[in-house]
């Protein structure tokens, strides 16, 4: 196989990306549609974005969702990083197979099962459902995604620096924060972002585990979508898409730059 693309390769990529992006583009375009009929173009307008700001229910739901996503992904990042260290660094210990099973299973577990089982747990221990139960549920399923992302960085990690620090008498705790963490930081950051967007996005698990006063944005969107497509929902979705796109692009540029600096420093240190 020679390097380089055949016509078949180029067509696959173009068609694949068209398939991935055209539906999203259409959704964004039609959020600027003046007509209330979502499929008939009635001229350019931003009025649905303005009417969003007056929709208190949606704004409340958005605020609840952002708070849950932020706090749950913070905790999930810490727990997931610990889990990743456990999987890659600590060799064998009793119950390791069970542990790795509990990390990988939630990645593919159908959401209806996770949601139902967490709800029944909260009922069994008599925990009032609402903000906190959704938070706990989100930490639990997103920490596994963080663990996988951080673990993939840890396995390709050169341990010589860590060992040098330890040999020079640096305590393990300090070694982790001075050496290991800065080196795996890009993976930790992308783990955090993944956890954040997964939480922002979750409908099923939140619907099962929530209670009065904690309606999340996906739950609001879902209940409106069931009644049909509206330009207002197109507008909410477009805003969410814009936020996520900007955050992902900034983060990837930042991690790329951090990676380049690190590599340059490592090269300098070698000389």
């Amino acid at each position: 196989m020679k390097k380089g693309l055949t016509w078949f390769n180029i067509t696959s990529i173009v068609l694949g990306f068209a398939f991935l992006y055209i539906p999203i583009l259409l959704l964004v375009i039609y959020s600027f549609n003046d007509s209330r009929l979502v499929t008939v173009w009635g001229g350019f307008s931003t009025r649905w974005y303005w009417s969003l700001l007056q929709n208190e229910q949606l704004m409340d739901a958005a605020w609840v969702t952002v708070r849950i996503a932020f706090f749950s992904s913070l905790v999930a990042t810490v727990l997931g990083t610990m889990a990743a260290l456990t999987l890659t660094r600590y060799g064998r210990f009793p119950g390791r197979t069970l542990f790795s099973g509990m990390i990988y299973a939630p990645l593919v577990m159908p959401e209806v099962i996770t949601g139902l089982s967490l709800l029944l747990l909260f009922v069994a221990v008599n925990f009032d459902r609402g903000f906190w139960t959704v938070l706990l549920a989100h930490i639990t399923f997103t920490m596994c995604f963080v663990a996988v992302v951080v673990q993939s960085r840890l396995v390709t990690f050169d341990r010589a620096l860590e060992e040098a620090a330890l040999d020079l008498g640096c305590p393990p705790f300090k070694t982790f924060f001075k050496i290991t963490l800065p080196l795996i930081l890009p993976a930790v950051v992308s783990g955090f972002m993944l956890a954040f967007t997964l939480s922002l996005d979750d409908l099923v698990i939140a619907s099962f585990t929530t209670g009065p006063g904690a309606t999340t944005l996906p739950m609001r969107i879902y209940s409106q979508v069931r009644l049909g497509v509206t330009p207002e929902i197109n507008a909410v979705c477009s805003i969410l898409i814009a936020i996520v796109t900007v955050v992902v692009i900034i983060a990837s540029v930042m991690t790329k730059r951090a990676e380049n600096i690190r590599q340059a420093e490592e090269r300098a240190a070698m000389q």
Partner: protein
Amino acid sequence: MAMAGEKGRGRWFVIAVPYLWLLALFLAPFLIVFKISLSQDVVAQPPYAPILDLSQGWAGFTEFLSGLSFANYGYVLDFSNEFLEAYGSSLVIASISTVLLLLAGYPIAYAMARAPRSIQPTLLMLVILPFWTSFLIRVYAWIGILSQEGLLNQGLRALGIIDQPLEILNTNLAVYIGIVYSYLPFMVLPLYAALEKLDLTLLEAAADLGCPPAKAFWTITFPLSLPGVAAGALLCFIPAVGEFVIPDLLGGSDTLMIGKSLWTEFTVNRSWTVSSAVAVLLLLVLVIPIVIYQNIQQRELEAGK
């Protein structure tokens, strides 16, 4: 394994915190689901019986045990209740979708792996980006495209290809489109990871020895990409079996999928015990693919060391 911190208290702390968290919030809930699947619905709070009452000691425990029954499983497995049909049709829909995903994902991943090194990160980013945007939004976007007056029908009519609008939304076809669309990044990424590692000298050797490209693909490239195929297929198949949002928003009233049945049983019929039995049986159906998936992940982890 020379890190001093691997022994001592720090190590146990790092292991114990996530371990206990997952035991309490991932494993324990399954045991509770299993227990409730053996209970009966009652009008009370919580809405099931029996409840384990340890204050009465051993007598309370035996009374609790004698109150458990497999009645809910009988109900779920009864042909007249459509649950069996829903399990069957979920497996069929997920299998067909996985095959479609492989057919769509393989050429994309293959082309990405062959693209110049300099643009590969950008291509990878473009595949991942839709995955970061909300799943619900991506499914919703298709409603506006596939409906009777939707953009697809408008387009096809403007081009004079059809006279009557096609009925796609609220059919199984829409469910297939939704699943393939939403899960495509999950298929492309493991395939790309496998194809990107491929040693190109093997293919050069084959070409030098006169092996035609198509034959080289089937005897070298494809077999070597099988771990990626397996990981991608399982990553799509397992969640697709229990999918709820896609059949609910894009499927019709005759689209039977077990995730939707479980949701309806829980939210409409409000039977916690029957939903638990449905969940336990769904887990039994999925336990073999989940274990295979974990073994693949575990092997990847060991190989990375």
